[in-house]
């Protein structure tokens, strides 16, 4: 399960000097919580035997891994980068990290949130699928693993309704709002989570090309909403 440690959804983000102020409360991306819950449901149904939570971020991102393990993930992988490295990380490179981890993890299903609420890019699941040449079921609102565990059926939310696709495993599934309601991490599980193993890897030592492909031209707060005005008539 890919989880991202993002700005907490309650925080009102401010732009300072052309950069988003980052020293605010962070927590697990809400869609990543849904992804973790999806994995947990499969584990409880006996379909999945092991859940590995993965994050790419600074040292503090480990908090989201602890959260995932408190929800039931068995172990974690933390790809650690310096703050500057993380700030400059683009979605393509993130996807490359997952692709590289696949060599070791050999996951059958890669669960991710459909997008992160800080940048809303909605790129990574699709890119991982392309890089690994495996199928993708994005915006999942429902899913069912086949009895022989060779394929998965994903019901996707699309603009004009929903669409169900069947795809062979391994596959990438990105989770949308209506897939489930994430469980509370109970207090005993939070305490147990601290004893579960986290495998740390250095981003710079993974042999991935991190050169940026995108240039940020401008970063500004959205225009302040102006009050409405009354018009004489609708014509």
């Amino acid at each position: 399960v890919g989880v991202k440690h993002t700005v907490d959804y309650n925080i009102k983000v401010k732009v300072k000097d052309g950069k988003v102020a980052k020293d605010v409360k962070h927590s697990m991306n809400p869609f990543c919580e849904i992804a973790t819950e999806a994995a947990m449901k499969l584990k409880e149904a006996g379909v999945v035997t092991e859940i590995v939570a993965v994050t790419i971020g600074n040292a503090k991102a480990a908090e989201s891994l602890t959260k995932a393990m408190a929800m039931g993930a068995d172990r974690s992988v933390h790809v650690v980068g310096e703050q500057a490295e993380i700030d400059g990380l683009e979605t393509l490179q993130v996807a490359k990290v997952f692709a590289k981890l696949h060599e070791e993890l050999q996951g059958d299903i890669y669960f991710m949130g459909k997008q992160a609420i800080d940048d809303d890019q909605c790129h990574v699941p699709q890119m991982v699928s392309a890089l690994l040449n495996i199928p993708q079921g994005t915006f999942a609102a429902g899913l069912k693993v086949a009895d022989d565990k060779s394929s998965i059926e994903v019901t996707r939310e699309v603009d004009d309704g929903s669409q169900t696709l069947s795809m062979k495993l391994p596959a990438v599934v990105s989770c949308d709002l209506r897939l489930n309601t994430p469980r509370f991490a109970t207090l005993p599980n939070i305490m147990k989570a601290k004893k579960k193993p986290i495998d740390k890897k250095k981003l710079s030592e993974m042999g991935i090309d991190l050169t940026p492909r995108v240039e940020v031209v401008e970063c500004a707060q959205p225009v302040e909403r102006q009050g409405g005005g009354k018009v004489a008539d609708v014509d």
Partner: protein
Amino acid sequence: MKRSAVNVAKRWCSGGMCLELSEDQMMIQDLARKFSKEIIIPAAAELDRTGAYPHELFKQAWETGLANPHIPSEYGGPGLSNLDSVIITEELAYGCTGVTTALEANGLASAPVLVAGTDEQKKNFLGRLTEEPLKAAYCVTEPGAGSDVQGLKTKAVRKGDEWVVSGSKMWITNGGVANWFFVLANSDEGFVGFVVDADSPGITVGRKEINMGQKCSDTRGITFDEVVIPNSQVLGKPGQGFKVAMKAFDKTRPPVAMGAVGLARRAYEEAVAYSKERKTFGKAICENQAISFMLADMLMGIDAGRFLVYRAALEADAGRPNTHFASMAKCFCADHANKVAADAVQIFGGNGFNSEYPVEKLMRDAKIYQIYEGTSQIQRMIISRWLLSQDY
């Protein structure tokens, strides 16, 4: 408990005082805050309207690990320190103090068992609370004896291997839903504290009292009519009962005080938000000093009260006597919460008096904090007695 005392020492001693919560405590706080926001707050207004006991919420809190924080792990509990527990209480109380009181009543009943119970008694009675979401109650107050605990009239008479207890208790929180009670009675050998099953013959539970606030909490009169209690269910020794009952308060007053802080913080946050939105005389009302000064006063007392509670909790965790700290915390936070709630209603103006807005409930809920768990007057007696006994 030993583990927490070591952590306390580390926090206090390395580099002096540390006012930050540990990473663990922040996780606990986050969990409790989330639970309060997503589960308690949506249910609170309806519970207040109906006065129905929050069984479902209690169960969910229990399943999430937020109930019975003080019960040690050897009896199946989370084994949290006093400091950890009060952090939870503040967040739950922010949501609804009625629900919080229903949960806290377990803490109050358990405290004498933790203070004076044998391992057997703890396994039996505390174990029940951790195995299932059961409730317990602390049965001391009587119609004729609230502050004057020594004046209680419930009598316990020793009969061989058993005791026979008769009397009436009043204002017992969780009285109608408890699986067991801690009862204090007087005898020829002095005060005796017992644990007794709620379904024992001779126990009659009265009707649910309709109170001003914390309406979903269950308060009742309980009558004991020749109730037989085995000697094995006496806590400590006969004659020690009063001390046991009072020592319990050292552990339970800090969480109760923190409940008042949680309520005050809620009232304050609601008032701040409202004062920014409400416009009169061409501007937001918070731009008037009369209002913003009220908010400043609220915040000062909330922060100060919180630290008084932390202090009382830390002293208890360190194993030092904390009686007057607990009293200071309880008295200050209760009194301040009432002022904050009343001022919040004032800031809301006409809307504040109305049940569609959240603050009138807070004002009604706040009052009891000055009364139960030791009235603000009793707390002042305890504090003044202590301070006069010190050499300055």
